[in-house]
């Protein structure tokens, strides 16, 4: 880092509560002003990261996010307001940060992080905070950080559980020391499928921000070699030691010398949302199904979602049998009857169709795109969720 910049009288007043801490003081605040932090993902974790790091006086914040603000983001992504729905996240975030602290220089990258652009984007930053929402990007951040010699503050969330650590610091472990390879994509439910308690990313992203600040200050006990596990449902915090693994291909043997896109990553990043990564499952489009139904064809509509989703909306005349109860409820289904299986977006129902075909049902199809596409193409009066 170049010599830390000095502070104006306005900045001295603004950061007064930092300057009163001997652990931060003027020298620390100047370090923050001279620092460049890259946030990968402006979502649930990126929101508190951006807000607190900007408020704390980090000099330059980079933001990588290709997405636009969606109404379903607002339950947890406190960086955005209702008026931002439909806008590019990077633009909305830039405005919010400018309003919060005009001293922060924002560099936005309205793009998806890929093996082609990652080194170019990360190279000019001192530390990365990973708030991405998929495994391929997480491996990319880890490997790129190691190649460039910069650390990353890791955070991830699902339902009620979160994880935080500081990886790729010299002498400490990296993400691959713990999670060597990504899990099989077909087994990974996305947040859109599994849900997440809104405050969880607020908590986890704020913990990441604390690690970033302490690392810049060069003080405090950092989460190096420790994985913090948070469960907001039981409100339990646990920390686990993680040692650098000499056999780790990223930080141990260093056999990862260039960035690779993890297996099936391109396919699943978008596919996980609409079930199209189950290409071999026979399916009907919503319009086809609506056509058959209007002709009075006898088709069983089987809803494999949970009851909590059924009560939001379901197809008229459908029958509910949640996916996890399908094996034990099998005897209640008639394999001779034409059956169309659906869920929210076609992912779980594709699994159900595959299972039913394996056990001998031949007249069973998946509803392509699930209830969401049915609403889009056939019946917009049903609520989306």
């Amino acid at each position, binding site marked *: 880092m170049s010599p830390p910049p000095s502070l104006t009288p306005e900045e001295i007043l603004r950061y007064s509560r930092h300057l009163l801490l001997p652990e931060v003081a003027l020298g620390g605040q100047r370090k923050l002003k001279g620092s460049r932090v890259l946030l990968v993902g402006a979502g649930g974790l990126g929101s508190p990261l951006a807000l607190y790091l900007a408020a704390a006086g980090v000099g330059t914040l980079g933001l990588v996010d290709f997405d636009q603000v969606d109404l379903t983001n607002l339950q947890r992504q406190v960086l955005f307001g209702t008026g931002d729905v439909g806008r590019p996240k990077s633009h909305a975030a830039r405005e919010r940060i400018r309003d919060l602290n005009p001293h922060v220089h924002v560099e936005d990258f309205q793009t998806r992080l890929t093996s082609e652009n990652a080194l170019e984007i990360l190279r000019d930053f001192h530390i990365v905070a990973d708030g991405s*929402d998929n495994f391929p990007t997480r491996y990319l951040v880890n490997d790129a950080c190691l190649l460039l010699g910069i650390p990353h503050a890791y955070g*991830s969330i699902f339902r009620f559980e979160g994880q935080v650590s500081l990886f790729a610091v010299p002498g400490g472990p990296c993400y691959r020391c713990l999670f060597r390879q990504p899990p099989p994509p077909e087994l990974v439910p996305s947040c859109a499928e599994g849900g997440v308690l809104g405050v969880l990313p607020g908590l986890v992203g704020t913990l990441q921000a604390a690690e970033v600040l302490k690392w810049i200050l060069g003080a405090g006990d950092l989460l190096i070699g420790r994985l913090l596990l948070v469960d907001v449902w039981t409100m339990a915090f646990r920390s686990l030691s993680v040692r650098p693994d000499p056999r780790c291909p990223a930080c141990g043997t260093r056999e990862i010398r260039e960035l690779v896109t993890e297996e099936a990553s391109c396919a699943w990043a978008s596919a996980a949302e609409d079930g199209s990564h189950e290409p071999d499952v026979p399916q009907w489009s919503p319009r086809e199904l609506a056509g058959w139904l209007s002709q009075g064809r006898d088709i069983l509509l089987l809803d494999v979602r949970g009851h909590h989703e059924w009560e939001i909306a379901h197809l008229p005349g459908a029958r509910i049998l949640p996916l996890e109860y399908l094996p034990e409820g099998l005897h209640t289904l008639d394999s001779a009857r034409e059956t169309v299986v659906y869920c929210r977006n076609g992912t779980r129902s594709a699994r159900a169709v595959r299972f039913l075909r394996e056990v001998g049902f031949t007249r069973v199809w998946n509803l392509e795109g699930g209830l969401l596409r049915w609403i889009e193409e056939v019946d917009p009066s049903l609520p989306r969720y």
Partner: protein
Amino acid sequence: MDASTDITVRVNGRERRIPRGLNVEGLLRSLGLHPALVVVERNREIVPRGEYAATPVEEGDVLELVHFVGGG
């Protein structure tokens, strides 16, 4: 379950009685966990994913099971 065939291990900080003779994969399955979605640390050593079935769980083992969590 015959108590003499049980062993005591510590899983995620909690003591548990489990049948003797289970391997790591069997333990995960008995807890309803998919082996591909869990990282297992046994006595502070990470067990490689391919060795779950070949790794026995023994009396007094300290196991930490960490889920893959990817959301943001």
